[in-house]
């Protein structure tokens, strides 16, 4: 599936205070990393709606990076923990959808960790290259399994909601 010319398209959601600044620092320090991640700035990793990730994948992204401040160092006290919880739930969902969870990676990077962020990007790009293109939108119609999985997840959610009410 993968070949040497495959350049994955990856969307990176970064919080304004730590990880976006880490990316700024990587730039100021002229640290080189693969140019595959297109960075979108949010105020906090807590703002990352799992729908953003699904949206990106459904539009043709091969991978997604989520980045925030280190646990305990969140600018908004502890909202990155909430991002982390969502991330683990999301990974579970992706698995059921037949998407390799390695395509979506969560990274903690403080504003002083340009090198660390660059390394994390390198790793994500390498991992996604190994997995090959996702082409979710074009594969979607043909992939009955994924559709089925999605339906079962929706059903599960509905059932869960019913129990609660």
């Amino acid at each position, binding site marked *: 599936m993968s070949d040497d010319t495959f350049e994955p398209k990856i969307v990176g959601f970064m919080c304004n205070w730590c990880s976006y600044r880490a990316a*700024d620092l990587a730039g100021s320090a002229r640290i080189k990393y693969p140019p595959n991640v297109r960075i979108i700035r949010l105020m906090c990793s807590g703002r990352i709606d799992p729908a953003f990730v699904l949206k990106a994948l459904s539009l043709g992204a091969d991978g997604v990076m989520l980045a925030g401040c280190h646990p305990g*160092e969140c600018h908004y006290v502890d*909202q990155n923990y909430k991002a982390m919880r969502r991330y683990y739930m999301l990974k579970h969902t992706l698995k059921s959808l037949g998407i390799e969870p390695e395509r979506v990676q969560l990274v903690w990077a403080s504003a002083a960790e340009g090198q660390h962020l660059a390394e994390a990007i390198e790793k994500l790009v390498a991992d996604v290259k190994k997995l090959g293109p996702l082409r979710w939108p074009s594969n979607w119609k043909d992939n009955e399994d994924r559709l089925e999985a999605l339906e079962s997840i929706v059903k599960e959610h509905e059932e869960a909601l019913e129990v609660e009410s």
Partner: protein
Amino acid sequence: MAERIGIYVCHCGSNIAGTVDVEEVARWAGKNIDDVIVAKDYKFMCSSLGQAMIEEDIKKEGLTRVVVAACSPHLHEKTFRRACENAGLNPYLFQMTNLREHVSWVCNDKVKGTAKAKAMVAASAERVKYQQPLTPMYVDVNPATLVVGGGIAGLQAALELADAGYKVYLVEREPSVGGHMAQFDKTFPTLDCSACILTPKMSEAGQHENITLLTYSELEEVSGSVGNFKVKIRKKARYVDYDKCTGCGICSEKCPRKIVDEGFEAGLGTRKAIYTPFPQAVPRVPVIDTENCTYFTRGKCQVCSKVCPTEAIDYEQKDEMVEIEVGNIILATGWKLFDCKKIPQYGYGRLANVFTNMEFERLCNAAGPTNGKIVMRDGKTEPKSIAIIHCVGSRDVNFNEGCSAVCCMAALKLGHLILEKTKAEVYSFYIDMRTNQKMYEEFYQRLLHEGMHFVRGKVAEVTDAARNPNEQGKLIVQCEDTLLGKQRRIPVDMVVLMGAIEPQADAKELGLKCGISCSMAGWYTERHPKLDPVATMTDGVFVAGTCQGAKDIPASVAQGAAAAARVQGMITKGKVMIEPIVATINEEACSGCRICNNLCPYNAIEYLEDKGVSRVITALCKGCGTCVAACPAGVISASHFNNQQVFAEIEGALWDAIAECREPETV
């Protein structure tokens, strides 16, 4: 009606143009992105000419949206927002694309760099279409300030503000202000007496008409936000009436209960059960230590009450809650000493004549328990040799990775005092000698001449296991001398451990109350480590002194003054702007599930019982957007970061992927 977008791609000299074909990016954007009216590249977009070009286009071409693709928004977002505003465009209709830090500087390949730049410009262009005009909010600033911590940094900040004519509440946990500096004997490198330079500031703070001193008090709760904080403070019961007490001290004198003073005297001296920590304490009003007071423990005694000439003793006193309103808060909560028992091989707590630096400060201090006589633990023998061990618990991955910044100089100072007061040989065991401030290196040279011995190496152990008659009855310091490349064993009478400066045990807890965070090591995080060292990420909360990181007295004083200056700036301005990036709940669609309520660390979401819906208290919301992402009904919206904007940005960022996937697969 379609928006009219202007796109401006900056060369930044060759900084961007070196690895991104900026002309191509501008040309491409003009041709391929819908609604783009103007797409230009320019050498330096942030120059006045570049700004003027944008302003002119806004007016002439009737641009309704602007994208500048240049450097980080953290650098020039404000610049271009202002340019838009000058041309009559709401600044929140502008978006910045970071081509320099995020593309050209991190990429070597011009083709790939250009492709990434296009995607990022497209992302901004798609997003900007959905941006909405926003108006920053302004709130009045309460001119009163809360300073937490009465050490030298807090005192300095309080006095600066009070002298400028503003009201200050100075809260201190201990019975007296003064902090650690009050415990020291001399200060390096000038060797002036610590008390002599500190006590005038203490009494000034005590008497200042603009300062309300709240000693023996702790901060309980903070609510509100910049300009208008409401603070609850617990005034712990002193059991002495603050107003009646004259500070004559007869109660302490007559109190029959004497205990070891683990606080101010670092366990070397004693105090009474009713006490002021030291003679120059401010205020002079004593407190009763109920754990040790005979009356409180056994129900009998009351000597203090009997001797008090003003009937100030009040055994029934209770903790009191005080509520104050302030516009700004300065945290100057200081540090604590590393627990040297955590390094058992250095023998503290096990070998009698191993001391901590704070114990030794008291030993050197003329007002201390030995009247400044340097003697061993038996209280009488003068040591013939003393070893000072640096970096105990600092620069050590097992405890604190960082350098405590002051111990080298403090060790030199103690060395000097020993040489001055005794005939002892003094050995310093150091890893690196750090004397990098004004007159510090000179002081080191002075000690070299005075005959202090320096051994470069990290001490392996302090032991009483003698190997030869020379070592018998001594403490042996074993260390690899890295300059000689040899193991050395130096027998001494006394060892001083320069314990690390650590964050206060409850620093994190207090930080949370004020909405600021700590670094991994536990120091308060400043807004910017270089360019904004006393502000924090929470507007209206400032830090000063060692709570922000280990530092010496001059630096603490400078930070105290700097924090005060920042606060004064806020007060004189009178109003503060609040970024209009907040969440709002569409009450009509809210189901009242309350999931969002507990997610907010600022308690900015209230539940309206009568309507059965939740509502964001705008003044408290900091705009993180966590509730927005969590709302199962999707009825919370984040201004400037709403779903529509982010989705559009994702779409733009993936314009090429979308195009590829639309094409029929050939494989």
